[in-house]
């Protein structure tokens, strides 16, 4: 039997836990909604403006860098399985070093250009 069958079953059990807990809450918890209770919380005063607003997204550079490095990390895991083989080990080490080296140059470049400053 594949262990992934158990993994799938655990996902189902998790969903059942959520449904059962919400069922228990329906039976036990009171429900008395008022308009004031359902307004958006803004530290006790009436909410100002709408939920759509202009804002400065500061983290998109991090998101780009993350995607680049995360794709890189995906290649590292299969590498772990061939590193010990006699014909691939040393060659794969050099190749990964070149691969990560290029990314590292990119990271240093981003840092020197000041892109890794939050403000």
């Amino acid at each position, binding site marked *: 039997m594949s262990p992934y069958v158990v*993994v799938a079953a655990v996902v189902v059990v*998790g969903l059942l836990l*959520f449904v059962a807990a919400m069922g228990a809450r329906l039976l036990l918890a009171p429900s008395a909604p008022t308009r004031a*209770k359902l307004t958006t919380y*803004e530290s006790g005063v009436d909410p100002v403006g709408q939920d759509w607003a202009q804002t400065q997204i500061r983290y998109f550079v991090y998101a780009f860098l*993350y995607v680049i*490095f995360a794709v890189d990390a995906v290649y590292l895991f299969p590498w772990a399985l061939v590193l010990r083989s006699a014909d691939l080990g*040393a060659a794969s080490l050099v190749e990964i070093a070149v691969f990560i080296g290029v990314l590292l140059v990119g990271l240093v470049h981003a*840092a020197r250009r000041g892109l890794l400053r939050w403000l």
Partner: protein
Amino acid sequence: MTALEALEVVLRSVAVLAAFLVLPLLVGQTEHKVMAHMQGRLGPMYAGGFHGWAQLVADGVKFVQKEDITPAAADKGVFRFAPAVALIPYLVAMAVIPLSPDVVAADAPASAVLVLAVTAVGILGTLMAGWASANKYSLLGAMRAAAQLLSYELPLVLSVASVCLAAGSLSLSGIAAAWSPWWLLWQLPGAVVFLVAAVAELQRPPFDMPVADSEIVFGAYTEYTGLRFAFFLLSEYAGIVVMSLLFAVLYLGGWQGPFSDQLGWVWTMLKGFVIAVVVIWLRVSWPRLREDQLQRLAWLVLVPLALAQLALTGVWVVASA
């Protein structure tokens, strides 16, 4: 699938559920008491009689009876489902972490990669909560969480990759079996990176800017009440359990120790518990980082350190092969 196999699947998943409902409460109660004593207080003393052992059970009973409010402006479906998305990934992660070669619910061949993948899904719960709340604090909190979890996911993945290289295996059982005490020194930089990144992934102090109470109330969880709020809290403590056990299995040899044939699972639990206490200790000792300091730490310290560890591991494995 025969009936016997089906029964085995049910038993295994129910055992995971039991561990999932008990272990986070143990960590939570430990946090109550350890924090209290570090701060010269007693912590909960009444619920259950003996040193307030039933405090979190009482909290749970209270949470179930609280009114569940969905704000009128919220995106209702997403808002209501977000706690499940935050919680279930840690349940799945717990299923594949081995306590000993025999005590594991699902011994998946690529469990190290699977754990990283499912814990990353949990972040979506926070994002969904923040976006669907239609609340400015929630949105800011979700943005901060997204930026933080992106940045710290990377050192976490890289340090786990280094351990996989060292063991030549992608399975957590294989990694713990390949472990030797020499790893404590050899993989030390990676271990430090993993611990720091894990605390940041869990949004625990000193990395709790996404829920900074003095700035943005409670971040993405501001609009939540009752049981749904409790589910987010539970997922935080389940996260501590998962990360601590993972640290024990990856860096401390899991079940390896005296009498590991019979008591292996006890060793894994003990090592994980020590790490959980360290995570609690960090909360008591360190002030919150600023948002910009946080990003610098991730990209200019942890990522280079994790890459250096990766290079060290790779060169050593090839040189000694």
